[in-house]
């Protein structure tokens, strides 16, 4: 079974994030970058399916040059090869453009049976890229999976949401996005780290994918930012020491605010 797993480098959520002053895009240099946690789970699931059914795992990443770190981590964990789409023209791409580029890039990989993604990248939080990708590739979407099972060309998934669990079924080829709960990702072994150095990474530009560079990135986005401003920070209000009446004081405050 040939699997493409989408990986992405995101700013660390424990560091401060901001928008660049000039064009309202994410200032990716201002924050530490890490492989999105959920992507590691996506890679893990791809590797487990490969171990059970054979085939090949390709890590796919769209992002600036340093996003190659995300690809390398996936290779260290055990992916066989990687495709990295890197092009200055992509700067400022919105979710739809990103999905279109991903769809084209998946198209460069032969005989794909399954595309696996994380369910929501923590920077854009659009939560829609896997679904849009399924729409563009014409694949059934089995998103927010807690559990994935493949038998023959039938794939079944447990989709867990706040509304409960849905049992889903579709025919391969298909697209899956995985949830936080699906597995515990492995750490790359020393052997894996050494082996990764020899694994092939294909680097592609937007033109290589047959897309018009003017149609992607900020200029090609179908949405336009009119204005962006840092929100004035919340200011600290009243603070009291608890002298045995802290709870009562909160209650009085809430009554004053008409909250109870």
């Amino acid at each position, binding site marked *: 079974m040939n699997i493409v797993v989408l990986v992405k480098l995101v700013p660390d959520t424990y560091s401060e994030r901001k928008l660049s002053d000039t064009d309202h895009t994410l200032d990716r240099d201002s924050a530490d970058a890490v492989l999105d946690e959920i992507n590691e789970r996506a890679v893990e699931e791809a590797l487990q399916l490969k171990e059970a059914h054979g085939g090949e795992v390709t890590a796919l990443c769209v992002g600036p040059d340093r996003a190659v770190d995300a690809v390398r981590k996936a290779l260290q964990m055990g992916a066989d090869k990687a495709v990295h789409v890197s092009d200055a023209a992509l700067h400022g791409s919105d979710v739809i453009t990103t999905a279109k580029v991903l769809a084209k890039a998946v198209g460069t990989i032969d005989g794909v049976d399954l595309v696996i993604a994380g369910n929501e990248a923590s920077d854009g939080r659009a939560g829609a890229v896997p*679904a849009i990708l399924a*729409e563009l590739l014409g694949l059934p979407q089995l998103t927010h999976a807690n559990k994935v099972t493949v038998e023959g060309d039938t794939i079944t998934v447990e989709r867990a949401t706040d509304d*409960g669990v849905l049992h889903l079924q579709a*025919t391969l080829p298909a697209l899956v996005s995985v949830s936080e709960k699906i597995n515990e990702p492995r750490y790359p072994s020393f052997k894996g780290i050494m082996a990764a150095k020899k694994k092939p990474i294909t680097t592609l530009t937007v033109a290589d994918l047959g897309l018009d560079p003017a149609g992607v990135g900020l200029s090609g986005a179908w949405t*336009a930012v009119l204005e962006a401003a840092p929100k004035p920070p*919340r200011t600290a209000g009243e603070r009291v020491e608890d002298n045995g009446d802290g709870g009562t004081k909160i209650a009085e405050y809430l009554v004053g605010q008409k909250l109870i």
Partner: protein
Amino acid sequence: MSEVLVLVEHVDGEVKKATFELLSAARRLGEPAAVVVGAVGTASKVKDALARYGATKVYVAESDDAVNYLVTPKVDALATLAGRVSPAAVLISASLEGKEVAGRVAVRIDSGLLVDVVDVERSGDDVVGTQSIFGGGFVVKSKVSTGTPVITVRPGAVEAEAAEAVATEETVELPAVDPARATRITSREPAVAGDRPELTEASVVVSGGRGVGSAENFAVVERLADALGGAVGASRAAVDSGYYPHQFQVGQTGKTVSPQLYIALGISGAIQHRAGMQTAKTIVAVNKDAEAPIFEIADFGVVGDLFQVAPQLTEEVTKRRG
């Protein structure tokens, strides 16, 4: 005035609160037209409630397939209608499924997508959405420059206001399902509906952090939440320590909430957590550490032991609610 399509979220014949918020937002942009996708007989159950919040039209796409396939029936219904009525906008709740539906509708009708807006307004011919990103650190106003604006609206961000209208009903035929592209729902295990409101919809959220100390101690948080009729949340530190289940995590890698009142118990207030709650209208914090960053954003803070303060507050609230 152009119609504004609103995708209705419903469970067992009950319309979710987020849908009333969408209808209220839609009234600012045009004529709210509710789109009901579900089992046969659903629309007759929800129509009156939709009209009460201003829906002048109810589009009905009812069939077995509408229930038995994931996401795509809703996309089919909205894309079909968008082609037919050229709406001013399509509004969908920024729920987990809503985001997926919206993304697919947008690419299918070649239109721009605004995600997770907290406000929406008309500015001349444009529909402008306000987004609060990076956990409320930045406020961004955007518009869709291509096609029909497809917008997901964060639950709880826009107030639901009743506005009685008379709704006319119109049927929408869904296209036949393509089994190679669709995902079948083979069975459902509905979540056991607790007595507490849903975290993202609750007007009061009481959250516990590392300071709560154990899973058993979370009862203190729960009792206060119940006294206030609120939902229970947890910080990432509390979830990672196994005190409370992940689905209740508030923060950058969990849920984003904007309730009227947020009470943080034993939460230090790391950026990771603040990102999920700092758009709350009022924030109250209780922490032993006077230097905890949560106090920098709290409207009212008590430096003290949450195991003393919270039960006392629970008692006061219960007394006043009588």
